[in-house]
């Protein structure tokens, strides 16, 4: 008898928390962005009884594909980059979103509303430099390429993405014409020719945390960088600046892998993270722009001025063309590998 009551107590002890508190796994890109999500999204929603287990990844879609194909989905909500949302949605990796359970579509930026993913934030790949070391600020991509006026190394992300766009803008192509030019054979050749010009002066980065490190250490005079990383470094007392001209902005999206057992809870989480309050709290943590336009009125002028969505910053910016990259990405990356080996 005694044993039985023990077993019962044990069973109750194990079962109770599971009933009282539902748990979902939310996957993010980690780093400064992951920390901001923790403060703005995970911690507040845990107070309402939904426990969030954060997992970091590097955007490997293979993991999601493997989970969905083997029907063992352990990720409930995943932060995904824009080309992967479109691609994964086409290939049936993600659940279609029921917007009636999230928020009215009209509250969001048009680009944030897609069939399988809803925009979390707007981020931008920009040119950055250390204002303590560089007295004359560079302004355009032509400046980035000008090794006479700004001697020293430049850092670019390893890969073709963004770099071919920047190269064309440095070569005098207007932001609005970049993707039209890049789609032609001549345009792609032109971009790689321009990259060849800068090749001896390039130091390549792999992880988003590297550009601020390179700049602070003085390894490079300028670097491409994710704007939130520059903001995070400045919060630690650095004096890094962003040249917003010709930056490429893009959105990250929440998606739900197809077949997750916690779909309802996942939707609940996404709905919470899309509220104006949560969106504003996130933008206060890191300089990425809210996708819910109602969040803007909750932010002060200083925070707003740092966001990629600020009118002053967005004026000459280019929206990342996810259709173009979903079509041409593989071929361009292969061409980049071939170019790098020359």
């Amino acid at each position, binding site marked *: 008898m005694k044993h039985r009551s023990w077993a019962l107590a044990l069973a109750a002890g194990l079962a109770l928390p599971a009933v009282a508190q539902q748990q979902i796994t939310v996957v993010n890109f980690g780093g400064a962005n992951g920390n901001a999500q923790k403060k703005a999204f995970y911690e507040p929603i845990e107070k309402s009884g939904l426990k969030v287990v954060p997992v970091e990844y590097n955007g490997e879609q*293979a993991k999601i594909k493997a989970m969905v194909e083997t029907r063992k989905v352990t990720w409930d909500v995943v932060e995904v980059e824009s080309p992967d949302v479109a691609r994964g949605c086409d290939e049936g990796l993600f659940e279609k979103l029921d917007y009636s359970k999230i928020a009215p579509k009209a509250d969001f930026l048009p680009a944030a509303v897609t069939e399988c993913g809803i925009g979390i934030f707007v981020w931008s790949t920009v040119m950055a430099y250390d204002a303590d070391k560089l007295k004359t600020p560079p302004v355009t991509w032509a400046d980035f390429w000008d090794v006479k006026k700004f001697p020293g190394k430049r850092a670019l992300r390893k890969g073709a993405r963004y770099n071919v766009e920047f190269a064309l803008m440095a070569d005098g192509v207007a932001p609005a014409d970049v993707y039209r030019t890049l789609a032609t054979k001549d345009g792609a050749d032109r971009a790689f020719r321009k990259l060849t010009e800068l090749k001896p002066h390039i130091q390549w980065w792999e992880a988003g945390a590297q550009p601020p490190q390179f700049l602070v*250490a003085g390894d490079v005079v300028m670097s491409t960088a994710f704007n939130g990383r520059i903001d995070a470094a400045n919060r630690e007392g650095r004096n890094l600046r962003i040249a917003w001209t010709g930056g490429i902005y893009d959105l990250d999206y929440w998606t739900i892998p197809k077949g997750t057992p916690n779909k309802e809870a996942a939707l609940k989480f996404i709905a919470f993270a899309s509220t104006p309050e949560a969106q504003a709290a996130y933008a206060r943590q890191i300089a990425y722009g809210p996708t819910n336009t109602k969040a803007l009125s909750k932010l002060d002028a200083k925070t707003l001025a740092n966001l990629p969505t600020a009118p002053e910053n967005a004026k000459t910016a280019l929206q990342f063309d996810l259709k173009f990259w*979903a*079509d041409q990405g593989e071929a361009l990356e292969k061409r980049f590998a*071939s170019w790098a080996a020359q």
Partner: protein
Amino acid sequence: MTASIALPGIPDPRALRRSLARAERRRKLRAFALTLPLLAFLLLTFLVPIAALLKRAVENPEVADALPRTVVALADWNRQGTPPAAAYAALVADLRALPDSADAGALARRLNSEAPGARSLVMNAYKALPPDGAAAPSDVKARLVALDARWDEATYWQAIAKNGARWTPDYLLASVDLRRGAHGDLERMPADQRVFGRILLRTFEISAVVTLWCLLLGYPLAYWLSTLPPRKANVLMILVLVPFWTSILVRVAAWIVLLQSAGLVNRGLQAVGVIDQPLALLFNRTGVIVAMVHILLPFMILPLYSVMKSVPSTYLRAAVSLGSAPLAAFFRVYVPQTYPGIGAGALLVFILSIGYYVTPALLGGPDDQMLSYYVAQYANVDVNWGMAAALGALLLAATLLLYGVYRRVVKSELSLG
């Protein structure tokens, strides 16, 4: 076992032989049963995945599954200009018959890796399918071309026609920079897509340099260790083994700290006055090789040490006492006795370096990436598993070939001491 000898006390030698054979068989069976778990483990975790990988490299079900009618309609097409209108009608019928949009997505991905741009072409057609009606093929064609003028181009139709079969050599061909032309004839990739030959060469080059450095650094150290009394040798061996047990990522991060332009090495050299400007030691070939040599050094030292321990020092002394110069004696008498250690260590280091991924990814530029970087890129970023599997197969074939050559040259089994 000779039956003719009559053993005292045993009446029937034949019965003895039988029972001996039975015992022998039982012993063998028991030994085999003991290895069975390992065998099953190897089969499940080693051979089956490799077989699955090789299968992925030649599997090509997407087009055959999704577009059976179109493939038939394209069978007689001369693969130039635009295909017959019947093919357009068949394509629309096929797309309409797809059970799920995920099938269209898989088809779009497969065709896109063959003809960039096919993804949006196929997905747009799938999403804007005209309602089912018995429209004439020429109308269907006009509709598709009106939707996207690219349906008039031969490239995409050639991609469909070429991939009608369930098995394809395309991935494997692409991994050696070849492809099938419109008519199935072999041709080289266009210059700007020709890349894996060079990457394979680079992979071997880096591995060879790393192996050489490991040998140059490891041989004297292993020799010195083997001459020390055991107590001292053990203490020093721990120094070799501690880094061996440390996570690779930690060691890579440590090298970043040491080699960066304001790092310990550059600062030190500048302080001594050897250099004015910091040397570029990171994010290039130097950084990759330094870190890889450091990580792989124990794999060279351990086999060398164990072989050297078994070489008696008397031979060397004998050679010197017979009048040989010490250095000549070392190279002509001692070194040949350590060849098994050199062979094992070099092979181990070389084969391990061929598959290196993390170290070059973190410490190298785009021109220092080895084949596994591209395997990861195709598997994770492009989600083109056929290509990833083909590159994996290439790596496997290269490794096996190398091992074959080693067996030929050394004419002995791989021995680790």
